[in-house]
């Protein structure tokens, strides 16, 4: 999604978020990621000023203190930025891919099922429904390298084991990663 993203051309406007809207956003975020409840005030302090940056293709980035925290495409679920995931790693559901897949993900590919089911990869034990936003870790690494949305249920991934399993939203080194918000 952020393969060709440049601050100059794709950012249309940036506005401060009203505090009432900000409260609503926080509730929505907790609803989507229940584990965030304990740390949400650390991510978005009550006094903090959230900024929404509107970009091409109905994309909005939510930033605070010059750092993008979340982005949202139209009315889709929120997707946390990688920097946020790195800080609060255990608050988001995650999957692990095998080592061979890292290279492709870092060049922007979606994740194929075999990369999630082979030896070295790991899916969570409980079923995650399709559409869940997950952090993507890699074999032998501790930090996330991408964020994506499940296209199939994780059970289905295990069963079918073919085709695209996760649509990658943002990965290390893409336009969002290197974006500098001022």
């Amino acid at each position, binding site marked *: 999604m952020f393969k060709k993203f440049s601050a100059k051309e794709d950012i249309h406007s940036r506005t401060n978020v009203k505090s009432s809207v900000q409260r609503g956003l926080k509730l929505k975020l907790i609803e989507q990621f229940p584990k965030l409840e*304990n*740390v949400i*005030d*650390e991510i978005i302090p009550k006094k903090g000023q959230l900024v929404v940056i509107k970009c091409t293709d109905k994309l909005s980035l939510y930033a605070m203190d010059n750092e993008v925290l979340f982005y949202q495409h139209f009315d889709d679920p929120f997707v946390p930025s990688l920097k946020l995931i*790195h*800080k*609060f*790693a255990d608050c988001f559901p995650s999957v692990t891919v095998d*080592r061979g897949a*890292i*290279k492709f993900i*870092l060049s922007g590919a979606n994740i194929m099922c075999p990369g999630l089911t082979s*030896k*070295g990869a790991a899916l969570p034990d409980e079923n995650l429904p399709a559409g869940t936003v997950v952090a993507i870790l890699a*074999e*032998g*690494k*501790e*930090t996330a*390298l991408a964020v994506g949305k499940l296209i199939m249920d994780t059970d289905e991934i295990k069963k079918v084991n073919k085709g695209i399993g996760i649509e990658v939203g943002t990965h*290390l*080194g893409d336009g969002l*990663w*290197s974006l500098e918000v001022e």
Partner: protein
Amino acid sequence: MTEDGRSALPIIYCGVCTFPPEYCEFGGTLQKCKTWLNVEHPDVYDKLYSEDALAKATEGLSLEKQEKVEREIQKLQAKEANRAEKELKKKLSSKVVVKRVERSKRKHVIAVSGVEVFGIDPKKLAKTFASKFATGASVTKNLEGKDEIVIQGDVGDEVEEYVSDLLEEKGLDGVKVERTEDKPKKKSQG
């Protein structure tokens, strides 16, 4: 810090490729990243690049596959190095042009072009000039379709000095700042 002690994890990002150090090997500038990490965070360096860590990382792969991966990574690194070199060359060969344009007999404007190549944001620079010289300064597209800062007033010397200082700060001493003058064609005398 919240009540139950949960808080943001400390995280290091590589100063060279901006990735978490674990992923430096995929960034294409591994050698530089390694040196950086060794200096800045020796403990992390030991964890990632010591002998056992390397052995562990490649454990699951067959020898053949391992070689292939290594070759590919090397290729990528060579490519990246090439690109960096080219970019540097391009930077060194380009220059900033400070042009003095006559508007009326006694009044001039200064047009600065070519700063964006060196990673300077023209819009911001225009703003700095505007407040520095207390004049109007704006960014416009010039004839070649490139961004150009137009500053009202005859401030060529100051601009030249400021720009070259700015470049020096960025470690680009060799970059030339060229002064030119542009007089409008005389109206045909009739």
